[in-house]
């Protein structure tokens, strides 16, 4: 359903042949053009050569690791990078995001999860030039241009800070946004560490926009990383 007219090229960098095979099957069935690299340096070469629309990058690779590839790529490559990580290596994940990776999927992942991330990233990348003025998620409508939020047609009053946070998350709908990114966007670069304050504001925000604030469906927490605005 999400396959664009011109098939998006997706480069998969993973050292495990079985994972590459599974991804090939998942991606090509959906009309994406999948190309593969089995190690970091080959991944860099292929990115330069084919200029893919998205890179799926495994973090745990022998030789040149995923973090090195990510750092190297971000010196010139602007399209989204989706990181594959294993559970328990949160530090690597956060480092990768700080280095400019756009999102991550934890192994083992389901095909649906991976496809949702891929779609979200490609959508965001294609719409980067003209950001969508109104973002809809279920009953929730976030109107960036008019700075208004409605749920089921009903206006919700938000403070300036709360709206900024929500806008930041919604503009990256379905993609992870690190706490640091939100803090820097809303408060400024020097506030990047104050996650406690952010958590307090998020909880206020949830009380206003979530139908069940203790069981959020719009603003999801990514433990240890940040938040994700969920549209589905």
């Amino acid at each position, binding site marked *: 359903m999400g396959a664009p007219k011109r098939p998006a090229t997706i480069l998969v960098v993973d050292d495990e042949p079985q994972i590459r095979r*599974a991804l090939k099957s998942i991606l090509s*069935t959906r009309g994406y053009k999948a190309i593969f690299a089995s*190690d970091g340096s080959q991944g860099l070469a292929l990115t330069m050569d084919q200029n893919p629309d998205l890179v799926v990058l495994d973090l745990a690779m022998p030789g040149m690791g995923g973090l090195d590839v990510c750092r190297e790529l971000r010196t010139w490559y602007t399209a989204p990078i989706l990181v594959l990580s*294993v559970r328990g290596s949160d530090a690597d994940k956060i480092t990768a995001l700080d280095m400019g990776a756009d999102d991550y999927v934890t192994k*083992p992942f*389901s095909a649906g999860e991976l496809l949702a991330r891929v779609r979200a990233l490609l959508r965001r990348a294609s719409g980067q030039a003209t950001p969508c003025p109104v973002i809809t998620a279920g009953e929730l409508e976030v109107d960036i241009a008019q700075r208004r939020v409605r749920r089921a047609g009903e206006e919700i009053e938000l403070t300036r800070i709360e709206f900024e946070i929500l806008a930041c998350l919604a503009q990256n709908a379905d993609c992870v946004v690190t706490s640091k990114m939100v803090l820097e966007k809303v408060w400024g670069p020097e506030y990047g560490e104050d996650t406690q304050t952010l958590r307090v504001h998020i909880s206020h925000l949830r009380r206003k926009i979530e139908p069940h604030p203790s069981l959020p469906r719009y603003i999801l927490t990514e433990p240890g990383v940040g938040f994700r605005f969920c549209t589905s």
Partner: protein
Amino acid sequence: MRRGPRTVERYGYLIAAVSVVAATALFSPGRAHFAKGQWALLYLLVVGLVAGISGVRPAMAAAVLSFFAWNYYFLPPYGTLRVADPRDWLSLVVFLVVGVAIGVQTGKLRDREAEAKARGHEAELLNRFSARLVSDISVDEMAKQLVAEVAEITGAGSTALFLCSDSSEPPRCVASRGTDCARSSAVAELVTWAREQAKAIGLPAVPRGIQPQTDGWPVTASHREAGIGAGRRDMYLPLQTATRQFGVLYVGEREDGSAHTFHEARLAVALAYQASVLLERTQLRSVEVQADALREADRLKSTLLSAVSHELKTPLASLEATFTNLLEQDTPLDESSVRPELQAVKQDLDRLNRSIDSLLDLSRLEASAWGPQLDWHELGDIVGAALSELPEPERTRVSAALPPELPAIHVDFGQWARALEHLLRNALAYSGSGSPVRVGASSTPTEVRLWVEDQGPGVALDERERVFAKFYRGSSAAAVSSGTGLGLAITREIIRFHGGRIWVEDVTPHGARFVISIPREPSAKD
């Protein structure tokens, strides 16, 4: 040497008296032949001799005795202390002054020489002891030598070394000599006191003219403290360094019942210091060894964890991705697209199975819970069984050429097939795809050899032992993504278990050959 100075000291005055009496007896027959003043010179000679043998004080005594003897026997009127010629009084006074002066000077020289000799002896003893300490002796050996050495130096009737393994326990006797002091409760009590207070008991007073601190005297010495030390003839010397306490050296009273001299005590203290240094070194080393072992265990644990998580999770991740893909609404489910998916699933399951097998094998090996079933088997059967475990396309790369007259070997069939399978998979993985892998065998009257050789890059010299270590993956492993790093470790354990050996050697022009050698007579460990 040890006895000499002490004997002379005690009998110094006797020697002085005997010398003067003997000289007088020798001189008196010749009284008529010499002038009365010349005898004074001979007496001065006697004073000098006494000074040389017995030191200053006996020499002075000899001078005084000679004064009287000369007066009595050689100055008229003979046989009385009266003096007829008033000039003789002058001679007598001069004689006394010169005699005492000679005695003092010669005695001092003699004392200095004796002192130098004693210091030399001390230095020699210390050197000898420290030489033994650096020759890396055990604590028990050191304790024995320490008590023996101290007993010899001090002449103590009994010596003992008490050590405590940790600070909460009372010190325990590890070596003793002479009468059984180790069981005396009085000794034990003072040993405990000395250790707790970290102070020596019973050290003799420091003689005048000696700087205790600069001479290695224990600064903490407190033999007068708490009334414990007063009048003691034995010593309790704590063994300690700046940071640690090890125990107490007990030095009993001298065999002849006299108190220890300062110099003896100082030597004993110096030896105790050296023993403390050895003990500290030993403790530090054992701490270091423990830390090393812990580090290694830690490293193994974390490598095990990462190997397990990688080897089990990768096929699981692949399975999850494949299955969830099949479950997605928009995935076509016709035969031509499902079949390759199922083949991939089969491969993942095989890999998962192998990883779990390897981990189980390893834990069984480590728990020595193999329970081998030894029997006589043909090598060809084992090779065949190992080959059948390999996936089809890989199997065609392997060629086996076994000589016809190979003897049967007495082994566990399943384990050997597994060991060989590990070697084959290893060779297949580490040599280029498509390059051949050969299995060969040979036999001598004493052993049977089986080898697997590939045409890969080979194993570097410095890795030939390490490739068999658990979780070690060769430097070329980056090119080979899968593998627990356990295969060769398991193989070696299996081969060792059967009393065989395994090693790796070079193949010309390039490649590695893993050779297993097993004796023809069964010698499996029970």
